[in-house]
């Protein structure tokens, strides 16, 4: 069973990034849960959510010891880096986190300039999707195409498929950056 914590500022697409991963997991035949941290969330405030997926039932959907932390800004990195399980990964936004504060022993930190990558492919709002691509590659649970198909399926069902080509480019940029 996998656990991923997604954290950042409100408006960075944190909750959506978590939802995309959970939908990719379902699309690939897994079970999944998505749980937001609930508070007076707003743009510019902090946001985070926890996703679990795997073959069996997800009994505990809460935040425990994630296999991967996505930290989209520095406060998120500082707040959550301590809960990552030994052997886990911290994926951080190197466009917003300059000098990385010390990482927990046994945890690998991977920086991805997701805002830059998203800008480069002409999808500046797709920084979160670039990170979704990076997560798929880093954890190795979903093949490239399964990730793309699961993501597109979700946006199609929401009637938001007009950005499909741009989303695929952002996903691809993040996926290849860590590959």
């Amino acid at each position, binding site marked *: 069973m996998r656990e991923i914590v997604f954290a950042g500022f409100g408006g960075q697409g944190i909750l959506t990034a978590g*939802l995309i991963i959970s939908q990719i997991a379902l699309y690939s035949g897994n079970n999944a849960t*998505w749980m937001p941290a*609930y508070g007076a969330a707003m743009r510019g405030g902090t946001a985070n959510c926890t996703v679990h997926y795997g073959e069996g039932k997800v009994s505990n*959907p*809460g935040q*425990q010891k994630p296999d991967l932390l996505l930290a989209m800004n520095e406060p998120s990195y500082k707040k959550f880096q301590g809960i990552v399980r030994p052997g886990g990964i911290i994926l951080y936004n190197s466009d917003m986190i300059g000098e990385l504060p010390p990482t927990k022993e046994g945890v690998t930190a991977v920086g991805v300039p997701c805002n830059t990558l998203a800008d480069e492919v002409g999808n500046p709002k797709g920084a979160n999707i670039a990170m979704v691509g990076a997560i798929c590659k880093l954890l190795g649970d979903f093949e490239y195409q399964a990730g793309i198909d699961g993501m597109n399926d979700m946006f199609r069902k929401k009637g938001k498929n007009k950005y499909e080509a741009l989303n695929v480019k952002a996903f691809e940029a993040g996926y290849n950056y860590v590959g």
Partner: protein
Amino acid sequence: MGDMVKGNIAIAEAAVRAGIEVYAGYPITPSTETMEYLSARMPELGRTFIQSESELAAINIVMGVSACGRRVLTASSGPGISLKQEGISYMQQLNLPAVILNVVRWGNGLGSLDASQTDYLRETRGGGNGDYRNIVLAPSTVQEGVDLIYEAFDIAEKYRTIVVVMTDSGLGQMMEPCEYPDFREITKCSWGLDGSYSVKRGNFLGRDIQAESDAYITKVREIRENEQRWFAAGLEDAECVFVAAGMPGRVMEGLIEEMRAEGNKVGLIRPIIVWPYPDKAFAELRAMNPNVKGFITVETNGEGQMIEDVALYAKKNGFGMVPCYAITQACGVPKDDMVKEAFAKIVRGEKKEVF
């Protein structure tokens, strides 16, 4: 398997499919998605959605719709449900059925927005003035929430009583895949008002209160007999039996498997309906395994509320001298490690029993 869907929205859609003709409510976090969803969904199906001016208005609209023999839903969270208690008590006196969704948030007064089970005692003991109980369903997954609210209307009409579906901000806000049941044909209860004046007028005088009470208690006993429901696992050889409902219940379903694999003889009773409490689960346990050394509830509140029911039903079923412990966390989803550490303390004799 369906797509990811929020608990609040999935439960709203299931109520639509169960045949609600009216929703009336006043918004409150963390239940509002239910109402927001229905504000579009009800008119789409030619049904009625009312955002009332207050919780009091909402529950009185519910009372009116129910008196007409139609299916009706209201949803709120702890503080809003408090305001609805007068109406709920009146509906119980009038034998009017309805389904009420309480997406519980932590605390007294305004409280907070966190997931919690702080309303357990209020919901299971009635809540308003008088001598009544509501049937209280406590789903632990989005799918179970869907299935239970769909059935809740049948149960409410069968006994002409209030059925409360008690979730929390965790289950309300989280997303999980789920499957929806089919649409029910909309029907009207035969006793619903139709405009003609057929009901004898009542007042305070000339009533036989003993007979009224006896009739109500006959119904309560029938509900107690018929509507107990629970999930059980690992009870055959359990030395310690965990009891947990709702979100802590699902956590414990997974955790006892892990703890058993680590060599602990633990079992689980997860009440799915918390009033009437699953008395029979304790009776079956007693017949199957009289060697239980302790009961442990896992709850999200201050010092345990359901622990009182566990102690009462343990005593009733011959476990009178068996200690009952409560592992609590004020809010949120209980962490596996927190439960395991507290369990280890109980085993070492470092944590005192509640009863």
